[in-house]
Every structure is written in structure tokens, then in C-alpha cells.
């Protein structure tokens, strides 16, 4: 067991307790043990971590990461992914089933959990397949998957085009108390598209992904959630139409939740003019009007959560023309800084709100005991230097994938430490002070 650890001199930002002040936090036996303990209360052999000038927040929670292992280890492994997550401040990630074989059985869930335990990176929770074989036709064995530890179900990044299947699954899952995650898209309207359909795609001659492909799917999703009273999370969303729809159903008290990605909050489709595959993301970078709408939606809780949108793909796959290159992005290590740059630098939200959208709220959506610094909870926390400005160098990523739309961009704020169960599993520089 690790020695006790005191994080001191930092600003504790924890929206779950309305905490936003300088304080100190004692961690013992993997749990948050005390808030502002006096020196007399500190145990023997207590390590100290000086967080002067930094923020101490709950570890971030990502609602949908593509792990790619088993089956696509050239893109990413559970090891590289869970360590990339930590470097980006995510102490918990939900892994989607875009693997081969897909995660639609007890054994497959167990495989991922075992590998993640050995990797000693971020906590990895599994999203089981929604459909058997991820074929979008028949319901997977959701009950057994839940027993094996799946925290929710999803065919993401694939959409669920079959309305009847989605409806049945939402109904069935009510007894399992697990959410369904849908990546909203009508595939027939999006065939062959590589970027946002708009003026830029028109001039560049590139096939577009129209906003209505997402809007229609969100409309269907929220209507089915209402009809079944099921737990549904839609995301990532990227359009004004999706936001509008979500706002209306939320006003009516329907408990649908939604998320979006940092790159959709920071970049517009204009960057596609360089024709680089590192901008080929899904959902695509939209026009500035959509970007502005999304930002406001994150502020007013129409969008509950920000997820990284990590979809790693190997370098050789991305070294291709825009039609051939897959949708792919290494996002875990830039998500926080990109969100800060998009939302804090612009004065749209403050730190507690951002931590709510990236830690507290996603933990609630996934039904996890994370996203908080509360005493008695597992000590998953991060230390952020909010003033560090850094230039994104994809070659320094821990992720296998080095394709990022933020390459060479200057972003604001950086994670210096990440703790899982009280253990410092990531430290950008080793600066832990001597024992008492």
C-alpha cells in the first residue's frame, strides 16, 4: 500500500462539493481521507505534493474512448491508451467496443479488465456491445455483460440505425440500470462523407457529412428515450440542430444526457483547406455557427459532458488521402487543454463548470463513484497547472496515434499529476517533496 499523501497549497476545485478554494487534501489507503487536516492529524511518513499555483480536481472521466485492443493493436493498446489518458488527466475511461473480436461476451469484458489492471494506467470501464457482434440487428447479452462488469452499452463509434433495436434495448436496460450510449447518425445521409457539408466542402469538392444526418438521429434518439423512459446518452454531438432538439426535450424534463468533443468546440471546418487527414474527425469539424452554439450548450448544460473523442488510428492509416484515411484522432492528451482554450480563455465557463463537464457529470452519467474529491471516495485526482501554455507535439504523445488537429497549436493548461486510488501514476516532473 502506498504511503499517505498530502496535496497542499493548491486550489481544490470540486463541483460535487461546491469547492473552489485553496486547501489541502489527505489521501490514505487509496481514499480521500480528510479535507484540510491539521498538521497534528497527519500520519507518519506522509508524502507531500506541493500544488502551489495549481488546481487539484477530481480525475477526469471520458465517456467513450476507442481502445482498439484486441484486434487493432497497431492503432492503440490498452496499455498505451490508459497511460495516454492519465497524461491528459483522465483517471477513468469508458472503452467502446470497436475491437476485433467485439466486446459482446463475458470473456471479452474480462480480457479488457485484466489488461487494464496490469497496465496500471487510468481505470478502464467497458461499454459492452449493444448488438450481438456489433451488427446492429440483435440485442447482445446485456444482462450477462452487465454482470461481467460492463457499465453501459454502445455500438459506438457506429450508429444504431435500427429504430426497433434501439427501442427494445432502451426498454430492456431499465432493469439493468445501465445507460445506452448512441453515436447519432443516419448512415444513409452520411455515406462517403469526409467533412462537414457546407461552403467549405462545396468549394473543396469534398463529400460532406450533412448536419441533418446527425439532427435526425438525435431526434429519433430523444423520442425513443422519452417513449421508453430508458437511460440514454447521445454523443458526441456537433450540430445546432442536435443542441436545439436536446434543449427542447430537457426543458420537458426528459432525462437524456449528451456530450461533445473539445475539437468541435475549438476548430471549424475551415482547417480542411489544408486537406490533412489529421482534421478528419467524426463528428466532423463544423462551421463556426455550430462551434459557437456548442460552446453555449456546454455552458447552459444542454450538453452535460465533454468527452475526448479519442479514436486512435495508426500513422500508416492516416498517411493517406482524405478519402482513404480513416476518421481518427489522438485526443486524450489534448482534451483538457483544448477545452480550456475553447471555453475558459474565451470566458464562456469557469473552472468548476469545466470540471463538472469533464469529471463530475460524466461520472454520474456512467453511474461511477468518480468525479469527486469527497472524503471516503477512491482517491482519483489530478493536478493541473492552469497557466502553462504548451505547444502540441504529437511525437511526445503516450498514445500510439499521433494524428491530432492541434499539432503545433499553442494550448493553455496542462496536467502535472494524475492519481488513481491515491497512487501517483503520472507525474510530468518528479517534484514530490520529502516526507514529514
Amino acid at each position: 500500500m502506498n504511503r499517505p499523501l498530502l496535496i497542499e497549497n493548491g486550489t481544490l476545485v470540486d463541483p460535487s462539493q461546491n469547492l473552489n478554494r485553496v486547501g489541502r487534501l489527505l489521501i490514505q489507503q487509496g481514499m480521500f481521507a480528510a479535507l484540510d487536516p491539521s498538521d497534528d492529524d497527519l500520519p507518519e511518513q506522509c508524502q507531500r505534493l506541493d500544488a502551489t499555483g495549481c488546481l487539484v480536481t477530481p480525475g477526469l472521466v471520458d465517456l467513450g474512448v476507442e481502445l482498439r485492443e484486441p484486434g487493432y493493436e497497431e492503432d492503440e493498446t490498452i496499455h498505451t491508451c490508459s497511460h495516454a489518458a492519465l497524461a491528459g488527466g483522465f483517471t477513468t475511461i469508458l472503452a467502446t467496443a470497436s475491437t476485433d473480436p467485439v466486446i459482446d461476451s463475458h470473456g471479452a469484458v474480462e480480457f479488457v479488465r485484466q489488461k487494464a489492471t496490469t497496465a496500471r494506467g487510468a481505470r478502464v470501464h467497458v461499454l459492452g456491445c449493444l448488438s450481438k457482434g456489433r451488427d446492429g440487428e440483435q440485442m447482445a447479452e446485456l444482462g450477462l455483460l452487465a454482470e461481467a462488469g460492463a457499465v453501459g452499452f454502445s455500438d459506438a463509434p457506429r450508429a444504431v440505425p435500427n429504430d426497433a433495436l434501439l427501442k427494445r434495448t432502451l426498454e430492456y436496460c431499465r432493469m439493468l440500470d445501465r445507460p445506452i450510449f448512441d453515436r447519432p447518425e443516419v448512415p444513409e445521409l452520411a455515406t462517403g462523407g469526409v467533412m462537414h457539408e457546407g461552403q467549405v466542402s462545396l468549394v473543396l469538392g469534398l463529400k460532406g457529412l450533412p448536419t441533418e444526418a446527425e439532427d435526425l438521429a438525435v431526434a429519433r434518439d430523444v423520442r425513443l428515450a422519452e417513449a421508453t423512459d430508458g437511460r440514454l446518452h447521445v454523443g458526441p454531438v456537433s450540430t445546432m440542430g442536435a443542441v436545439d432538439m436536446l434543449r427542447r426535450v430537457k426543458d420537458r424534463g426528459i432525462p437524456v444526457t449528451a456530450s461533445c468533443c473539445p475539437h468541435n468546440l475549438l476548430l471549424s471546418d475551415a482547417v480542411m483547406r489544408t486537406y490533412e487527414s489529421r482534421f478528419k474527425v467524426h463528428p466532423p469539424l463544423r462551421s463556426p455557427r455550430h462551434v459557437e452554439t456548442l460552446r453555449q450548450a456546454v455552458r447552459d448544460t444542454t450538453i452535460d459532458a465533454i468527452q475526448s473523442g479519442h479514436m486512435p488510428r495508426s500513422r500508416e492509416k492516416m498517411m493517406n488521402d482524405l478519402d482513404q484515411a480513416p476518421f481518427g484522432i489522438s485526443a486524450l492528451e489534448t482534451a483538457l487543454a483544448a477545452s480550456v482554450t475553447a471555453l475558459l480563455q474565451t470566458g464562456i465557463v469557469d473552472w468548476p463548470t469545466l470540471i463538472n463537464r469533464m469529471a463530475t457529470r460524466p461520472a454520474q452519467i456512467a453511474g461511477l463513484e468518480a468525479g469527486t474529491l469527497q472524503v471516503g471516495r477512491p482517491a482519483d485526482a489530478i493536478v493541473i497547472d492552469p497557466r502553462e501554455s504548451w505547444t502540441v507535439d504529437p511525437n511526445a504523445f503516450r498514445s500510439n496515434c499521433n494524428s491530432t488537429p492541434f499539432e503545433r497549436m499553442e494550448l493553455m493548461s496542462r496536467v502535472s499529476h494524475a492519481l488513481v486510488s491515491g497512487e501517483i501514476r503520472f507525474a510530468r516532473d518528479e517534484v514530490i517533496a520529502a516526507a514529514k
Partner: protein
Amino acid sequence: MTEIPDLDPYVERWNRRHLLDLERLSEDELVTLLDVAQILKDATEGCRRKVPLLSGRTCANLFFENSTRTRNSFSLAAKRLGADTVEFGSSGSSIAKGETFTDTAKTIEAMGVDWVVTRHQTPGTPHLLSRELDCCVLNAGDGPHEHPTQGLLDLLTIRQHRGSFAGLTVALVGDIAHSRTARSNIWGLKKLGAHVIICGPPTLVSQRWQEIGFEVAHRLDEILPRCDVLNLLRIQFERQNARPFPSVREYAALYAMNASRMKRAKDDILIMAPGPINRGVEITPEVADGPHSVILEQVTNGIAVRMAALYLLAAADEKRAHTGLEYQSVV
């Protein structure tokens, strides 16, 4: 052998290493290209003779999509200037063996070529190549994006007949959605001062063109009396996933340039088509072969503008080697 013209004043005004699209060219650059094309056309007696301005250089044709006329036109242009040519195609080359297009291009560059002329089904590939290769890159068509030398040859043909573009109304008719010819023509025409109408069914002509600053029309008959030039674009069945109109018969009824429509057109209207033409779809034989048609002149002008492009890019490259001047950035 014909006399070698003095092109130095034009080279002075040219600072690009690649010809990727017309959207990014200035009016002055367009005029320079057209002027040099005209000079070279005259010097070669209508693109029939050689002027050995570029002997010893090598032009690689790297075509990932089928092409007959553009490819041969580039080859002839290079040969008329005294350069050697080398041909690469996707079938039978290492592309078919799974090599990426950048690797193929780099291999060809390593063979010591001065220009890579490339055609690819995906927009932006010439732009990507231009950043990877240390030689001149010419776009010979990147999917539905642009086909700059086609745009230039259309401009040259219009200029030969009308002298200038001011006050001219030019309609591009047909499959705009999939047309690289259209996407090159619109920028060239706009910059040189013509009024551009984009005409076709709404499934092939986006309303967004209007937001970008072009007139959009869906009924050919309504705009026909105003047009000085019609450029009839082929329906690219091969690029369409779903038919954007009910039948070829219906399309022809609405958009084909035929004898009865000719009667309602201006007396001096120019009929152009980038080819290959679908007789009976966008144009009837009597119009294609009639007195207003300049379709075959376009083909000859194609060699002229390609000579001009090859020459100016190579000359700028040489100028940079001597002076250390930087190129204009690609993007």
C-alpha cells in the same frame, strides 16, 4: 525549328512552384499564364512545332485515375518544349500493390523528375504531394475539386474569341457537384471580371454557391438569352452514388443544348465543353459540330496552357535556385 520567344518579363512576375488550383491565383497570375500560353501557341505554330525551352528536363505523369486527353495533352506540351516524359498509372504500378500515393510519388521524384503531373480521385492530393515532394507539382484533376489547366484553356479560348472578360456572362451548365472543370472555371472567370452563372438541377447545383458569390440558376431556358458563353459539363455518372435526376431523357429535355435552344441564344454565343462529351445528353451533334462550337479549339489550347504552366513553374524554380527567393506559400 522555330524562334525562341523572350519570356523573361513573364518569368519576373511568376513566383509559384506548383499549380494546384485557380482559386488561389491572382488576376495578374492568371493573365501571365494566358499571355505565355498565347506566345507559346504562336511560337509553335498552333502547338504543332517544338520550341526547345526546357530540353533536358523530365515530366512525370502520375495518373491515379483514367485519362486520355489530359494525359496526352501534358505529354505533348512537355515534348513541344523539348522535355522528356515518363508515364505512371495506377494499374500495373505499385499503387496496385498497396503502396500509398505519397510513397509512389516520392519514388518517382527520386528518379530525378522536374515536374509531377498528377490526377487523383480524391480532392487535395496534389496539395499533399506539393508538401512532400521537392519538385513542381501540377494538378491534372483532383476528384471533383479543381482541374486548373482545364480552367485555363477555357479562359484562353474565351479570350481568343472575345478579347477580354469584362461584361461577359458565362454559364456553366450541368453536373456542377462533381465537376472539377466548374470549380476551376468559376474562380478564373470571376477574377478576370466575367459574370458567372452556375446552372443545373438543384441536386447538382448547391444553393450555397450563391452565398459564395455566384449566380445560381436551375432553368437553362431562363438564362440562355443573357449568355455569351455556355460551358456544357458532362454528367459524371461514375461519381454519383444515387441518380440526381429521374432519367437522361428528362435531363436532356431540360438542359441539353440543341438546335431549338440555339435559336434563342445570342447570335455570337460560344459553345464550349470540356469533353469527353456525351452527345445527346448535354449537347446534340448539330450543336457540338456547329459554327458556334469551339470544342476542338479548346483541345489545342489545352496544349498551349500546359506548356505555359510547365514553363513558368520550371523557370520560377530556376530563378529561386539562383536568387534564393522564397515561394508563395501553398495554402
